[in-house]
């Protein structure tokens, strides 16, 4: 490559491409234009392939091997043994169930509250920027920080929440050892962090609904509730589908909250709030079985694919019945 004499900007950054600067000089800007796009996308795709796509696909391959954490360069073929072991492990099914219940406990109230708050934020208000920023502050907080604070608030003996419950006469709740209470506690952290974010997404969707729709609905004598039900909700449908998909995927991945709720990978004394994400981490980094952890990861991936298809099917069906 001894062609380029002046330090002309190398338009096509792809190595091995026939010196784009020279080609450009020969046949005008068109030739450079043909190669340049690849130069623009190359930095992204090279790193994306290496650190995004490859690990994802290679996970499936690793899941068919015995790989130990300490000697992770050695892989012994196992076939589907990691999977059969997984499906025989009651803690796997326990984690799957917990992921589902915590997912419902965190996603449903979160999105409903977000919808309500967005509706209120859509009114003409004093200090609306204040409300919006305050609502987004939890989103800016890390999972770790939020969980540490909530773990303190949910403390059994000295936590503020139990103090409050006791002083109104309800009595303390064991937010750690009880299955439902601990799952509620973990879900509360998720709900706290994401409600405001989703409210803003809904608000953006609401502001994109044309005002004439409301005016004509009002002329037809629709009450505010009917307007919300028949104008706002249908107008928001794509946004709602988007938030449901994102929160569901987030829920299948739940990890930091249950890990730091009491600070162990088991997810409570009897694994009562251990999620799949936590179970995967425990297999890999507590029990040192990277191969088994990869099998869990691949199961989680399939779960997400199934959920996404389910979501798409439901959305398509609702669209059909509505029209």
């Amino acid at each position, binding site marked *: 490559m001894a062609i380029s004499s002046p330090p002309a900007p190398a338009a096509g950054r792809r190595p091995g491409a026939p010196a784009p600067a020279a080609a450009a000089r020969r046949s005008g*800007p068109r030739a450079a234009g043909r190669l340049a796009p690849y130069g*623009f996308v190359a930095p992204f795709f090279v790193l994306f392939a290496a650190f995004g796509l*490859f690990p*994802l696909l290679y996970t499936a391959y690793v899941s068919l091997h015995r790989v130990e954490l300490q000697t992770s360069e050695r892989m012994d073929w196992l076939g589907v043994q990691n999977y059969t072991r997984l499906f025989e492990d009651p803690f796997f099914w326990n984690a799957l169930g917990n992921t589902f219940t915590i997912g419902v406990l965190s996603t449903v109230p979160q999105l409903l509250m977000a919808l309500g708050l967005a509706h209120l934020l859509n009114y*003409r208000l004093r200090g609306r920027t204040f409300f919006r920023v305050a*609502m987004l502050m939890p989103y800016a907080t890390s999972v770790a*920080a939020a969980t540490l604070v909530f773990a303190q608030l949910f403390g059994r003996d*000295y936590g503020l929440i139990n103090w409050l419950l006791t002083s109104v006469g309800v009595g303390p709740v064991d937010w750690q050892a009880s299955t439902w209470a601990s799952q509620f506690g973990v879900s509360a952290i998720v709900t706290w962090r994401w409600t405001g974010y989703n409210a803003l997404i809904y608000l953006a*969707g609401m502001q994109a609904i044309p005002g004439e729709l409301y005016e004509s609905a009002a002329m037809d004598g629709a009450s505010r509730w009917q307007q919300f039900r028949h104008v706002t909700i249908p107008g928001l449908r794509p946004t709602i589908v988007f938030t449901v998909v994102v929160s569901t995927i987030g829920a299948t991945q739940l990890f930091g909250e249950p890990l730091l709720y009491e600070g162990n990978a088991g997810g409570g004394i009897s694994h009562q709030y251990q999620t799949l994400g936590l179970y995967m981490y425990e297999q890999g980094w507590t029990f040192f079985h990277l191969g088994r952890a990869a099998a869990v990861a691949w199961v989680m991936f399939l779960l997400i694919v199934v959920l996404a298809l389910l979501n798409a099917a439901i959305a398509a069906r609702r669209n059909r019945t509505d029209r």
Partner: protein
Amino acid sequence: MKLAKRSPLQGGPLAYAVLGAATLMFVFPFYWTLVAASRTNAELSAAVPAFTPGPNLFHNLGEALEQAAIGTALWNSLVVSGAVTVGVVLSSTLAGFAFAKLRFRGRGLLLALTIGTMMIPPQLGVIPLFMVIVKMDLQNKLPAVILPALVSAFGVFFMRQFLIQALPDELIEAGRVDGASALRIFWSIVLPVARPGMAVLGMLTFMATWNDFFWPIVALSSQNPTVQVALKSLGQGYVPDQSVVMAGTLLGTLPVLLVFALLGRQIVGGIMQGAVKG
């Protein structure tokens, strides 16, 4: 007809009351962190909890800095988040521009690949990633958390959506007619137009990287932690004092809150913008 733009309804007292209560719920944990971080452990386990900040803040902050390497963690997080933000914003703007405004073979396929994988959580690839990092001898070193995060499918999509609307085709055409090279066009025509989008993407990326949890705790250790890794050590009982744990939490959250106090309005705008376009 009347004005095309609908003037929203005036919020009544009930709207203020509900929003006020919600705001209280959202903000209270921050206040509580400050309270707990400024008290002693004994005060935290008293029969009647303290509701106002106490005098012990600086003592606890000092302890947190000393016991949990929060100082190192803050510096590391700054380095990592800064490097990742620059990488993501640059690579996303380059690729986003190509997808938005240039025609080339394979464009549809590459774009579909980018969008299709946008929703797949990176958490699912951590095991091979870990094996790669071990092989490269990068375990417990900052490049281990920087390298995999340097590009983002979401970022590419975001910049593409931004540039489709913000960058008129005529501007690029004019540059071509003037005989500017592709890189020249990018530098002097695309970049100035892309700047607002890059700023939003930068803020979101910085926050997300600062708060990233799974991969850093796998790739790094408490000897050379980022803030989240240090907080994990705190949460796992390496430091027995709850008040010190809360002081560490406060220190780790403060930088992001500071950014938020300064740029909150823009971040809100960015998220709402992304929502409409996304």
